[in-house]
């Protein structure tokens, strides 16, 4: 199974590889929406991964409002692009997007983490329409993405598979099994995005178990590597559009998104302890104000 996947050019992306100012403004607004909804939902749970979402809010926004091929209200559409999260603990930022796509009713968000509600800290594909792969145990998702891409090849469906990985996740051995495997099988419709926010639960990634040179590692494993400012919605959207337009890709793609953990809330950006936490209503209001007026 080594033939590269080749499909017809996607007409929807041809000829408009650079997002317009209006499109960029919309993506920034959607990223703010992700952050504000994350504040609201964690207020219900009284604990959550604020900063893990804030670092990838633009990635979420660009994927769900620019890059991915989706159909409103049809979470099981077989030709949809797939999204898997290695860093499943950022699911609180994903749920509002899935509800916004009408994959489930928005009222479900109001019961986030409460008894009987399907929305938990980590995403469950069996319970939540629009979640393409359950996660929570770090390191499995890239392999899952490989399986989806290979199945797509056999079933003659030309969807792309996006996998969001944490940078601490680079410490998991299975990620590198998957990296070898995807390159060997020339899985060109697989795009991994590493949220390189620099922190994991116990501290700075490079103090815990360093992962640099990260781009060099992925290149050495045979991937097409791109580095981007993960908060620059225009750059991110432009990159993913160019990748989407190239239907002759025969290597898996790794996008290393340089990000700031807690981006958008000043006191979180400087304090890694916010990987997991809770904001009182007063502090939540301060955070919301910063997010609402921020450029991020």
């Amino acid at each position, binding site marked *: 199974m080594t033939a590269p996947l080749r499909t017809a050019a996607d007409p929807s992306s041809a000829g408009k590889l650079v997002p317009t100012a209006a499109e960029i403004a919309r993506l920034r607004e959607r990223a703010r929406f992700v952050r504000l909804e994350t504040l609201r939902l964690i207020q219900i749970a009284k604990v959550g991964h604020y900063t893990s979402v804030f670092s990838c809010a633009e990635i979420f926004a660009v994927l769900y409002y620019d890059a991915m091929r989706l159909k409103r209200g049809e979470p099981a559409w077989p030709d949809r692009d797939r999204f898997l999260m290695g860093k499943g603990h950022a699911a609180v930022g994903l749920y509002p997007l899935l509800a916004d796509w009408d994959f489930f009713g928005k009222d479900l968000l109001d019961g986030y983490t409460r008894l009987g509600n399907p929305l938990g800290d980590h995403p469950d*594909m069996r319970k939540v329409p629009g979640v393409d792969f359950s996660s929570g145990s770090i390191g499995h998702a890239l392999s899952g993405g490989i399986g989806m891409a290979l199945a797509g090849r056999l079933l003659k469906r030309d969807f792309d598979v996006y996998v969001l990985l944490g940078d601490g996740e680079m410490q998991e051995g299975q990620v590198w*099994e998957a990296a070898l495997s995807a390159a060997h099988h020339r899985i060109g419709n697989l795009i991994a995005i590493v949220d390189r926010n620099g922190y994991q639960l116990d501290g700075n990634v490079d103090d815990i178990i360093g992962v640099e040179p990260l781009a060099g590692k992925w290149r050495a494993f045979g991937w097409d590597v791109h580095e981007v400012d993960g908060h620059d919605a225009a750059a991110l959207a432009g990159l993913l559009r160019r990748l989407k337009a190239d239907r002759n890709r025969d290597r898996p793609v790794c996008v290393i998104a340089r990000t700031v953990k807690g981006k958008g809330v000043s006191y979180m950006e400087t304090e890694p302890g916010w990987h997991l936490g809770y904001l009182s209503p007063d502090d939540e209001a301060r955070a919301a104000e910063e997010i609402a007026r921020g450029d991020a």
Partner: protein
Amino acid sequence: MTSAPLDPQSWQYRQINARAPGLGYLSNALTSLVEAGHPVMAGTADLQYSNGLVRFAERHPERFVQFGISEQNMVSAAAGMAAAGAMPFVATFASFLALLCCEQIRTDIAYSALPVRLIGHHAGIALGFYGTSHHATEDLAIMRSIADLTVVAPADGPQLAAAIRASADHPRPIYFRIGRGQEPNVYAEDAPFSFGKAIVHAEGSDIVLIACGTLVHPARAALQSLRAAGIDAGLIDMPTIKPLDEEAILAAAGRARIVLTLEEHNILGGLGGAVAEVMAESGARARLVRHGIRDEYSLIAPPTHLYRHYRLDADGIEAVAREALNRLS
């Protein structure tokens, strides 16, 4: 470079395994599913000659994925295949599948009820002197404790093939526990199979043997010896460990004085454990005796020597049954 022809006694792994008839059942059953229109995909982790999937790979290269020595990646990828609408079968040694990949099986496959078919081959102590790293005497206990996972230990190739064909209509993930493909057949080629259904070979009022997997064949021979000696012995093949055919167990336990479970597995948590749970909760009057590996790491030896040592061959099973009857009388 030229070399002299090898002595006929010499052999090499690929050739010998390519000829082993018992290794053909898996690939042939998968091909029959392909021919019936199912979106079958098969994968292995550097063991295509051990499980015979090389035959499937030759017939259906577009459906075969060689994962190399990365079992966890393979199992998670199988979850992805199923999530995208394919019908994946992934195979490796039972020890690696059930122990190394336990979490991927639980979290990626069973938790999401994805219809992945896991094939754990060379289960039990079938790998003989390759040692404990390659033995799987815990896999039934581990797999049985995973919710929504069906656990099947076919007795031979025909039953494996029947179970694989039946799996086309089974919407849940399945763990198949099989031997090394060199076991004698118990069943004819058209063996019937239903998930969750025991196969009663004989009823008995003195003792009923309940066996699974590779022990069904020697249990059947032991049954004949016991009956020839005037003992009213019965035999049940219990290929599905989960969901368990409780009705068949309770019927046997209501009729016989002794129920003897037989498995190439630790007596903790596998078939014996499962039968014990059912009998204890029902208040069945029969005495339960569990036979298998008694919570220890197997010695190393050629497999047939181990089966004799641990009394897992026909003579050993017969002796265990007689001892159980003697203790009770």
